[in-house]
């Protein structure tokens, strides 16, 4: 079996391979969509966590069930589901993160059978009552998983799972740190493959894989070449290498991201002191920087903007970024409302931005290439 980046690439190209093998060995596979379901609970219950993704394949079956004027990423996930591509998934955890995902919950459940289906209500606000509500929601999910799995998720088991997932996130951050070098030691394309591999294997296997990748990447001589620009890519669901690869082939190093299949998944840990359910709520609701969560303004408009987007400025500084691409999937309303603010905020911080709005399928890739090349010329 290949190791390191080669193994990540293999898992990226055959995402369901490992989950299917484990299922053949008697394990149950628990699917989840979006960043918000606490995977620690899935691990603690003894299931294999499996992140549901879409595909750049044309959507051919979902049109009979879902409207075309909604998130094409969710439509693509559903398209795979209705074509039985997710039949190996025993159960599904469906969070209320945005209108598109929320309103697809009943529709998926109605047409795509799984043995288990659970809706996790994630508040949009971050008040003390919101955290209290979300802690209870996580507790209800825990009970539900226990019932489905016939297991007791003890505090000890949950703390072990939290430790394993914290390690996973720490390893991903360590790997990301290797992108600070110039040229970066790992490309954005390779990082996307790693992310997809990590989200389709059990956490202990993923950690072992990450350790081997870090070892390989730290000492590699065949890493990415230095390009004219070091870019940050901001957006939501990029679960395929095509777009990042396009950017890198156009003459840039993608050195940091703020994506659902990127840093948004691993940048912050779950606290290990105190009530683990509360700690999960604090991390998932409080620390994931997704525009679907409303953060109260701490005071002035500038303080509000810093509170919402300051981490992007910090990313840009830490990774020595000289440009940003804001890649927005059409009909993703929460991102669409934020993107003018993100653009202006970064530009005021001296980081030029290119805004691209796409339908997830990348069918307009030729036009994007021209625009990216022009952008790189301007900032180069």
């Amino acid at each position, binding site marked *: 079996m290949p190791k390191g980046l080669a193994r990540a690439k293999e898992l990226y190209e055959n995402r369901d391979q490992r989950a299917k093998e484990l299922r053949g060995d008697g394990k149950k596979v628990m699917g989840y969509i979006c960043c918000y379901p606490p995977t620690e609970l899935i691990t603690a219950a003894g299931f294999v966590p499996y992140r549901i993704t879409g595909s750049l394949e044309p959507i051919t079956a979902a049109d009979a069930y879902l409207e075309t*004027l909604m*998130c094409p990423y969710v439509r693509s996930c559903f398209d795979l589901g209705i074509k039985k591509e997710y039949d190996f998934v025993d159960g599904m955890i469906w969070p209320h993160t945005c209108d598109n995902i929320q309103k697809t919950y009943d*529709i998926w459940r109605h047409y795509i059978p799984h043995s288990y289906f659970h809706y996790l209500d994630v508040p949009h606000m971050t008040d003390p009552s919101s955290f209290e509500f979300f802690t209870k929601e996580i507790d209800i999910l825990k009970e539900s998983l226990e019932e489905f799995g016939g297991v007791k998720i003890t505090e000890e088991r949950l703390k072990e799972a939290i430790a394993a997932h914290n390690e996973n996130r720490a390893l991903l951050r360590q790997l990301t740190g290797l992108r600070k070098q110039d040229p970066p030691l790992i490309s954005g394309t390779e990082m996307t493959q790693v992310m997809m591999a990590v989200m389709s294997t059990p956490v202990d296997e993923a950690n072992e894989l990450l350790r081997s990748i870090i070892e390989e990447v730290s000492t590699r001589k065949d890493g990415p070449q230095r390009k004219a620009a070091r870019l940050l890519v901001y957006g939501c669901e990029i679960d395929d290498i095509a777009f990042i690869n396009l950017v890198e082939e156009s003459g840039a190093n993608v050195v940091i991201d703020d994506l659902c299949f990127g840093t948004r998944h691993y940048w912050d840990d779950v606290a290990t002191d105190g009530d683990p359910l509360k700690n999960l709520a604090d991390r998932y609701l409080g620390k994931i920087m997704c525009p679907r969560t*409303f953060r109260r303004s701490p005071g002035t408009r500038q303080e509000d903007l810093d509170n919402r987007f300051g981490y992007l400025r910090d990313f840009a500084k830490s990774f020595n970024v000289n440009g940003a691409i804001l890649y927005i999937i059409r*009909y993703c*309303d929460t991102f669409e409302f*934020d993107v*003018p603010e993100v653009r202006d905020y970064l530009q005021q911080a001296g980081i030029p931005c290119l805004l691209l709005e796409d339908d997830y399928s990348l069918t307009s890739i030729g036009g994007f290439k021209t625009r990216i090349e022009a952008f790189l010329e301007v900032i180069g």
Partner: protein
Amino acid sequence: MYRGEGKYKTSARHWTESAKKVRGLVRDMYTRALVEEKPAAWVMLSMINELFVAMDVLPVYPENYAGLCATKRVAEPFMERAEADGFSNVTCSYARIGLGYTGLWQDTGEIPDFAPDGGMAKPVMMVGSSMACDTRYKWFQAFSRYLDAPCYSFDMPIPPAGRMRRPDVMLHYLGYFLAQLRGLVAFMEKTLGKKMDWDKLDEIVRRSQKTNALWYDSFILAASAEPCPMPVEDALNNFVPAFFMSGSVEALEFYQGLYDEVKQRVDNKVGIIPEEKHRLIWGGGLPPWHTMDIFNYVENRGAIFVYQTSYQPFAPVEVPDSITDPLMRMLLMRSVPAGVRIAQERGGSRPKLGGFSGLTSPAFFIEPFRAQGVVMSMLRSCRGTSIGQIHQKRLLEESSPVPVLILESDMCDVRDHSETEWKMKLDAFLETIEARKKDS
């Protein structure tokens, strides 16, 4: 055409005297906020108007204002301003109108001269929410680009079907709703520098309960009657006081008048068209505010929309006097959708519901209101009311012989609307209903 009303109106003809009064009430709402000394608040529709009445604040609803701009066909320059700033042309057109309005205001320092009713007054606060869609809190957050007014949003998640059957889960949701409303009251108190008068709020909420009961009774009475005395284009005016003025004396008086008028028309069998060949339900999505005369077009072909599910009343709920918290009363009095009550009263099983829009499904109303067709409106810029329509259509067609038509447009952006396509599809749909009648 924009920047001023066209020579020929595309708004609907109204039939009831009540519907004709609504325009004046709306004009007063905006004018009062502009001329009176009282503070104004920009509010996202979240069924909390009673709080503003109690705090003596004049609420202004940018959502309603956007619909007004669309009806007047002056929405386009507002939307273009928002789009020029980077807001995508698929974001909610209500929001683009509101953002463009504030953007243009910021550009010149003055309210645009083509803004209907003199425009929306500068607010001392903004209140968004997560009720029904993401736009409701994201839009108001985005206003801060142009407006310097404190913004508060509160959470009101909709539990999925069946979840509230577990008592502890129901309390978990109710507890959160209450905490969020209390947070809003605290924000209002801080911003206004005065305390909520809870006794006054209680009185206002009880008045609102009476208003809601009259609203429900008049809408259900009208939809049940044959001939239909109040068509949907009137209902789409007559819901306005209940949504945007609830708790006020004016709203209560309006629904008392509406009920009396509907009752009088029912008693005297006053209908809209000479022969109701086809009774229809407007079963999802928002109406095309820019082209409301489409309802009159249908009437000219012998069909009439008797009920709409876009802006439904809540079924009256007896809230016991032991509930002394007016915030809890506000929540409970709006806890039973009209369709659920009708199904309960008919003693039959509830229809198969589709998704989060299931509780407001047209399936509840087809038999009780003797409808022969359902029309839905899929809106390019509204995920909240559009996602799930295909699913609803499939469920309806599985369980009922009534045909369903989905039309595509947008509630405010006339650039996404094709008048010809709508008319052609509606013509074909009416022919389908006719053919099915003959077959059966």
